[in-house]
């Protein structure tokens, strides 16, 4: 996160105006002055909780046992009482979360707390409790279970924050702030992005595709009012006695952007291929002419499987793996065979107007990288960009054929949404 001197001054002014009386007001004030985008908010909240903790030290009251905590939590969940839930999180971590006894190896664990408290097992009990209390059969009550599940998730987050605070008191805030706060969505490594971060990632990727689309459109607009058509300008100047009063601009035939995506969907890049699906989907929504091919060790066109707006990357990956013919004999990726087959089967559909994006880690499983096929593809199209989800330092290690491919086509390290964003603006300067 970039916070400059200007923001610091603003934040100080904000604190001076707002005072320290109300913690939530202070939080919002600091957020307004320090943040610039929505995605930064989760990081800010976690750090804020560390530096402006709700309380210090252990809770005043003696910790209750597990059963009484569960009972009270059930009540809090049924009433949706946020204040009580926060307080219970504090007590639960204190009673159940501590481990170790010697200084240096002891601490507080959110995982252990939740493992012992098992809030998710309260679901049925709370549901029945609420049903029995209320009139209970209205339409909205069929949503009850989901709502309760969400409240339990909320409680888990509260426990995590509390454990982080307790650890920070022992180990020092700076260390914890650096280690234990998850990065913003645009810095998450695609290869390791979990399911829960995918939704966040989508919110980051979607605008990127739009950015790509608008950039291409802007370029075309600009090109359309670019060069002067000398012949027609002279012709027009005849009516004004040879003085070219009105320059005539060259009209360009509008060209549809042709995009071909070639995606590795094998298991070794599963995190990345989820992201690939997001990107493919987003591009497909924005561009009219995108052809998408997927491969593991065979290539198949999957453009037809992408319906506009079907927004479920995980499901999409499964559909592709189920419906397209991507493997033969074995399930591991083979770039050489796949690229060869692509060049052979679809080579003729590539034109000098096409831009090809290859998405994959270039790990050939010791197979032949088939550089000739890449050379042939690159020769037929305008540009080939290879997006590699592995860090540059790993290229060429083990079975990676990245350096060989990079010698032929432009290969870019693309591990996070931020890198992808930079890439888009670099590849397509307005």
């Amino acid at each position, binding site marked *: 996160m970039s916070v400059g001197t200007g923001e610091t001054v603003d934040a100080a002014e*904000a604190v001076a105006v*707002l005072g320290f009386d109300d913690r939530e007001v202070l939080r919002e*004030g600091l957020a*307004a002055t320090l943040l610039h985008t929505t995605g930064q908010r989760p990081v800010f909240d976690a750090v804020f909780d560390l530096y402006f903790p709700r309380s210090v030290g252990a809770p005043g009251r003696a910790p209750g046992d597990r059963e009484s905590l569960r009972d009270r939590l059930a009540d809090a969940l049924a009433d949706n009482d946020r204040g009580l839930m926060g307080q219970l999180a504090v007590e639960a971590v204190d009673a159940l979360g501590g481990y170790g006894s010697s200084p240096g190896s002891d601490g507080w664990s959110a995982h252990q707390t939740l493992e012992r408290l098992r809030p998710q097992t309260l679901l049925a009990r709370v549901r029945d409790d609420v049903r029995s209390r209320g009139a209970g059969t*209205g339409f909205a009550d069929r949503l009850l279970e989901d*709502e309760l599940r969400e409240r339990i998730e909320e409680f888990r987050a509260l426990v995590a924050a509390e454990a982080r605070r307790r650890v920070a008191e022992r180990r020092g805030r700076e260390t914890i702030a650096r280690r234990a706060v998850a990065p913003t969505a645009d810095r998450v490594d695609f290869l390791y992005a979990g399911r829960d971060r995918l939704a966040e990632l989508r919110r980051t990727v979607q605008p990127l595709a739009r950015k790509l689309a608008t950039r291409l459109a802007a370029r075309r607009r600009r090109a359309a009012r670019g060069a002067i058509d000398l012949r027609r300008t002279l012709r027009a100047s005849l009516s004004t006695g040879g003085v070219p009063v009105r320059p005539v601009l060259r009209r360009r035939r509008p060209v549809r952007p042709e995009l071909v995506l070639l995606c590795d969907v094998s298991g070794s890049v599963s995190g990345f291929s989820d992201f690939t699906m997001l990107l493919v989907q987003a591009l497909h929504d924005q561009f009219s002419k995108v052809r998408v091919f997927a491969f593991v060790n065979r290539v198949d066109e999957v453009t037809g499987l992408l319906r506009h707006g079907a927004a479920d990357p995980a499901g999409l990956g499964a559909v592709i793996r189920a419906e397209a013919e991507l493997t033969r004999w074995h399930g591991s990726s083979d770039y050489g065979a796949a690229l060869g087959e692509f060049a052979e089967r679809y080579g003729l559909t590539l034109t000098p107007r096409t831009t090809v994006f290859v998405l994959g880690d270039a790990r050939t499983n010791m197979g032949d990288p088939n550089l000739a096929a890449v050379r042939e593809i690159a020769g037929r199209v305008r540009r080939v960009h290879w997006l590699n989800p592995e860090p540059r330092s790993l290229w060429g290690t083990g079975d990676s054929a990245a350096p060989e491919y990079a010698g032929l086509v432009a290969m870019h390290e693309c591990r996070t949404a931020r890198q992808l964003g930079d890439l888009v603006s670099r590849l397509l300067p307005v």
Partner: protein
Amino acid sequence: MFTSVDDVSARLAEAGYLASPAIATTVFLADRLGKPLLVEGPAGVGKTELAKAVAAVAGAELVRLQCHEGIDESRALYEWNHAKQLLRISAGRDETWDEARTDIFGEEFLLPRPLLTAIRGDARKVLLIDETDKADVEVEGLLLEVLSDFQVTVPELGTVTATQRPFVVLTSNASRELSEALRRRCLFLHIGFPEEELERRIVRLKVPGVEEALAASVVRVVGALRAIDLRKAPSVAETVDWARTLLALGADTLDETVVRETLGVVLKHQDDILKAAAKLELDAV
């Protein structure tokens, strides 16, 4: 303009705008620090309404610049009234060129557009720059100048500086990344979907006559819809619309038939409607 954060919430509420604590705090800060306020968030959560409410509360004039692709300096800042200038020239036949020239670039022939209007004059003003992300990048440069110094330079007249700083609200749906420079000039506020309790109060306020129980279940269902992955998640405007529709239909509780028949008020894509129907366990829609 305001004395405290609570004062902001109370007075905005009087103007018919129920603000979350985040909104109230940020508005208070923007007023105190004299900085523009950049508001982001999905469509229909009340970004524009916020500016209107602030104007109403402060008794200020609302100046609105609606951004769109291709908007330029003459639309945003000022224009010369060419037709009137020509009239003036042809009306005064006998004068010298120097007299005519100084004359036709006077205040009288200036057509102030929103940005200049907001800066000129002594009256209190709220400047709303709506959908900033729709404007081209060049306009952002223009805004930078106006928003950091609150002044505009008209070559023929000189520099116009604001005597009274307007309260500036910029809104954006994040369809384009705004430049870092612009963001740095502003306080940042993200308005998301409101908390359940706040939304219930909003529905009750905007749709008088709706029963408490109905409002509660409408808000709950909309909350559940937001949790599903939809193309267009319903926002507050849709919740209010739905409550209005239900009221007009005379439905005082939600049941399967009513929901099935009115789902189109909340969801705007057929895909979404199908997905929501599956989720809510409605029979075929």
